[in-house]
């Protein structure tokens, strides 16, 4: 039986709260009532909406960053997504606010990518060691400097491989594998059929696997097969 929707934690990473780490701006979860904040925001309470923004901005920015492969564009898309969400709040019919804003940012990035027909490119500043590369965030309780360094390096390598994909494959891969959305959600968000989602995702995974050949030494031992 495949571990279909089961998310594995990175072997070298300590489990965190769904992979997110706390930020100083994040409100206390005990005092965070999403439904109440949404009601207040619908009535024009911008402060209430901004509490939701602070809650999910890392998540939304991560999606935008991996889709756009460009920190500045990702920041623009994130800001536009929250602005659009606030102005369209009356259209939100309930459910997960995070998923709703995620769809907004995906669609916004999708439009932007279509608009400029961006090609996979190396953004030198974003490569490991580049000026604007702040690297993957450190786990809240990194086990050791060596492990943290190895994790950061491996994550950076994986992100670079994702970044090297074409737009269509990257969109599907980020939504399905990085964001954990179902085939159906991806198909609806991108306006493509399920068969296309499957084939694009398969090709994207193969491409990332091939790309990771360059960093075999970074892969955890349990990821390595017996032929080595």
């Amino acid at each position, binding site marked *: 039986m495949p571990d279909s929707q089961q998310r594995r934690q990175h072997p070298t990473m300590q489990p965190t709260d769904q*992979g997110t780490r706390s930020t100083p701006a994040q409100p206390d979860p005990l005092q965070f009532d999403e439904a109440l904040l949404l009601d207040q925001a619908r009535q024009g309470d911008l402060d209430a909406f901004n509490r939701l923004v602070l809650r999910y901005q890392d998540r939304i920015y991560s999606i935008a960053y991996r889709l756009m492969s460009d920190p500045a564009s990702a920041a623009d898309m994130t800001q536009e997504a929250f602005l659009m969400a606030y102005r369209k709040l009356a259209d939100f019919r309930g459910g997960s606010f995070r998923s709703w804003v995620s769809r907004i940012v995906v669609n916004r990035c999708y439009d932007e990518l279509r608009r400029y027909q961006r090609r996979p490119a190396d953004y030198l500043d974003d490569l490991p060691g580049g000026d604007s590369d702040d690297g993957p965030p450190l786990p809240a309780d990194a086990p050791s400097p060596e492990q943290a360094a190895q994790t950061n390096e491996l994550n950076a390598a994986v992100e670079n491989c994702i970044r090297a994909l074409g737009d269509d494959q990257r969109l599907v891969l980020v939504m399905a594998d990085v964001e954990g959305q179902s085939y159906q959600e991806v198909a609806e968000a991108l306006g493509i059929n399920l068969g296309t989602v499957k084939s694009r995702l*398969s090709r994207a995974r193969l491409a990332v696997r091939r790309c990771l050949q360059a960093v075999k030494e970074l892969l955890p031992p349990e990821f390595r097969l017996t032929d*080595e």
Partner: protein
Amino acid sequence: MDFRDDALNPDTAELLSAYIDDALSADERRDLEARLRAEPALQQELDTLRQTVALMRALPERKAPRDFTLTPEMVAQADAARTGASQAAPQIRPRIVPRIAPRRPIWQPLTAAAAAVLIVAAGLFVIFDQLPLTTQPGDQVQVAAVFTATADVSVGTGARSAQPEVLDVVPQAAPPETAVEEAAVEEAAVEEAAEAEMADSVPPIAEEPAQAAPDLRQPTTPTVAPAPTQMPLPSPEIATMPEAASIPSGPRTAGAADDAAETDSAAESEGLSFESAEADPMLATPDPALFVDGLRLSVRAALAAIIEQAPAAAPLVRVLAALLTALGIPLP
């Protein structure tokens, strides 16, 4: 980690990928699991692919580089931008529509007309090349008629409503006596006289043809060498030939077909249409069939060229063809 997707069949890879996501049907899953048990290499492919997916799923969120909280100004600006966009939409639309609309270049019909004129000119060149070298009584009339027809084709409208009236004008512009009286005059003097007369009757066009006409015919037949207006004519009937009608033949054949409108007006002023020429008894040349057939072929080729270059002008061309037929010039 061993990557060997180059050797992996795309369909199999898709099966493995969907298997990881538990997105296979029961039959597909059963078949694949049977293959996995039988093929260790395939199982290895599945393992590496699954590990790749696990690496991506383990990616942590990135820290937002700044807070994306909204300010009242940002919201107001977005609302203003949206209002402005809706107001500006009507201004943008006209700019886009012409770009999407199919382009129909205005030069296309003009090119077709120019091509038609060139084709007719070439056809006439061939025709004249094949004509008998001796001057025939009807030659001048034929040549004038050719250019009347050429002008019709080049303009493309074909509706020459002015032609009947032109017939009345010609005798006034060139009295029959003029040709007879000047027939015996020396060549150079005759040319000057012809120029002067043509300047009176058709000032803008006639001067140039009067000078160029001899160049065409002079080498072939000495009797034609003088300007056609003063050419010695074998019979009194021929002397009644309107001199203006014969003069422009040379230069137009030589390729002065670039100003179709002027040619048209000149043909009218010169007073000969194809209809009048054909009705004229002087057209009874020794071999008129060769000339007429060549002319018809040329006109037909011109019409075909127009239709090919500008399909939109096809109805107009058909009207022209019908008009020519009505005028007694059935095309082949």
